[in-house]
């Protein structure tokens, strides 16, 4: 990615995807480890380099058949690392890890394999909207393909063996990034969060673990990985949990329109007005106002702006993307509010 412009984002931000009004993106990830090595936390740097070589020599298959880009994360600039993180191709711990590590990225950037994150392999796939079944099917094909070249650590009782016992068994984590602004406005979010906890789901913020729910975006994922098949876990999400959340959110949106449509219109158009007129815009503000505009677009209260554009801007206002797009410096204490406001204004003109 070094030196390149960010690639086209159409495949990652599509506003026409299923349930795109309430689901920003879907993700499926598998944790796998190789036989013959200690887990990453107990490997020497030489052993970790050996793991990297083994994986790079393997034929990954699946989406990587049409092209794979290997990024040696240690050799990249901080901007490039952050860019990969903002694009959800690598995790925050992977950005900061001191270990020898690399990531394989498919040509369409929908799939990545992190080598030497917490586990030797973290395979993950992303798609816009609600596409968990499709992602899961493609992921299992990729998993079988990788397994032809690399032997996975497995135990008949515990399943796929992982460094953390919270991932053991299937090693699968399915998640959906939900946009729930109406539930927040009608103050029903707490009830939904309680229901999610009862269903043993994890609810996190915009960038996963330990992050805030900026713009009322919530990442919901399974917490347990053992005792059920991959299909059962995915089906529970795709067939029940996500549609239920979406139905709650849509009901809350209908309630908002019935209760006070003028107040709703004021809220979403005021946000659009700020984004079209402001001269300084922090990251937090930009996500807050883009999320409001997103609600207006999804409900047809704002015309002339597409959901895809808003999804794209949610990515492009982030520091590394902004730095790459505008040339503004990234780093400690740099004020990027001016360039961000200019970029958003010109995009929404």
């Amino acid at each position, binding site marked *: 990615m070094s030196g390149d412009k960010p690639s086209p984002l159409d495949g990652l931000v599509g506003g026409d995807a299923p349930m795109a009004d309430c689901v920003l993106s879907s993700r499926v990830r598998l944790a796998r*480890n190789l*036989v013959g*090595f*200690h*887990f990453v*936390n*107990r490997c020497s740097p030489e052993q970790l380099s050996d793991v990297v070589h083994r994986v790079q020599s393997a034929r990954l298959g699946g989406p990587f058949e049409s092209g794979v880009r290997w990024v040696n994360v240690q050799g990249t600039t901080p901007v490039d690392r952050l860019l990969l993180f903002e694009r959800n191709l690598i995790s925050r711990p992977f950005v900061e890890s001191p270990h020898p590590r690399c990531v394989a990225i498919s040509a369409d950037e929908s799939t990545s394999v992190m080598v030497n994150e*917490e586990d030797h392999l973290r395979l993950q796939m992303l798609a816009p909207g609600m596409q968990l079944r499709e992602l899961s099917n493609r992921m*299992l094909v990729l*998993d079988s393909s990788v*397994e032809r070249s690399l*032997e*996975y*650590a*497995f*135990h*008949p*009782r*515990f*399943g*796929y*063996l*992982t*460094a*953390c*016992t*919270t991932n*053991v*068994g*299937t090693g*699968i984590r399915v998640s959906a990034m939900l946009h729930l602004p109406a539930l927040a406005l009608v103050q029903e979010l707490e009830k939904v969060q309680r229901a999610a906890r009862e269903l*043993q789901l994890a609810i996190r913020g915009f960038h996963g673990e330990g992050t805030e729910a900026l713009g009322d975006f919530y990442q919901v994922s399974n*917490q*347990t*990985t*053992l*005792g*059920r*098949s*991959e299909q*059962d876990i995915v089906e529970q999400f795709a067939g029940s949990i996500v549609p239920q959340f979406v139905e709650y959110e849509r009901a809350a949106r209908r309630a908002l329109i019935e209760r006070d449509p003028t107040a709703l219109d004021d809220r979403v158009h005021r946000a659009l007005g700020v984004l079209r007129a402001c001269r300084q815009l922090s990251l937090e503000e930009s996500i807050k106002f883009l999320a409001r505009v997103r609600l207006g677009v999804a409900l047809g209260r704002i015309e002339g702006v597409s959901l895809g554009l808003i999804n794209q801007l949610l990515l492009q206002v982030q520091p590394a993307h902004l730095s790459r797009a505008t040339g503004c410096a990234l780093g400690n204490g740099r004020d990027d509010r001016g360039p961000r406001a200019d970029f958003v204004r010109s995009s929404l003109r």
Partner: protein
Amino acid sequence: MQPHCDCCSNPAVVHETLMCEGIKSEVHLCAEHAIEQGYILPNIGGASLVVGKLMDKSNPTATPAATRTVKSCASCAMTMAALRETGLVGCPHCYRTLEEELGVLIERTQNGATTHAGRHPRHAAELIDRAAVRNRLTRELREAVSREDYERAARIRDEMLTIAGGGEEA
């Protein structure tokens, strides 16, 4: 309410709070597992004699408890105490050497689930079959013993020994 042992359902008699990189974690162990992990001396037992670890910390030159037997992984030397500090297992072999202790921990972190029910790598097909046969034989052995059919029980035991010698897990 008195907490239960981290490794089994018995009441805990040893309680220790550990701090690792600012993250607090607690250890609760019954007498048997406290002995096993070197927290108390065998044949003594009881919370008032929880001395093993404390002795080490207060006086590094003190002779460690001579009879301390801490179960550790033969491949990476991981112990349950070390695992609790990092939250991470050391290697695939740990799951075999520390199977009993990890089984209890996994049941807790996986909301009561104990056994894998998903797909498996092709190389593990034989292991899966062998585990299924072992489970069936264990059940049949239990039934034979309860019927006092010791001849049958002996045959089942021999069969189990044959299977056990058939190879190792990944």
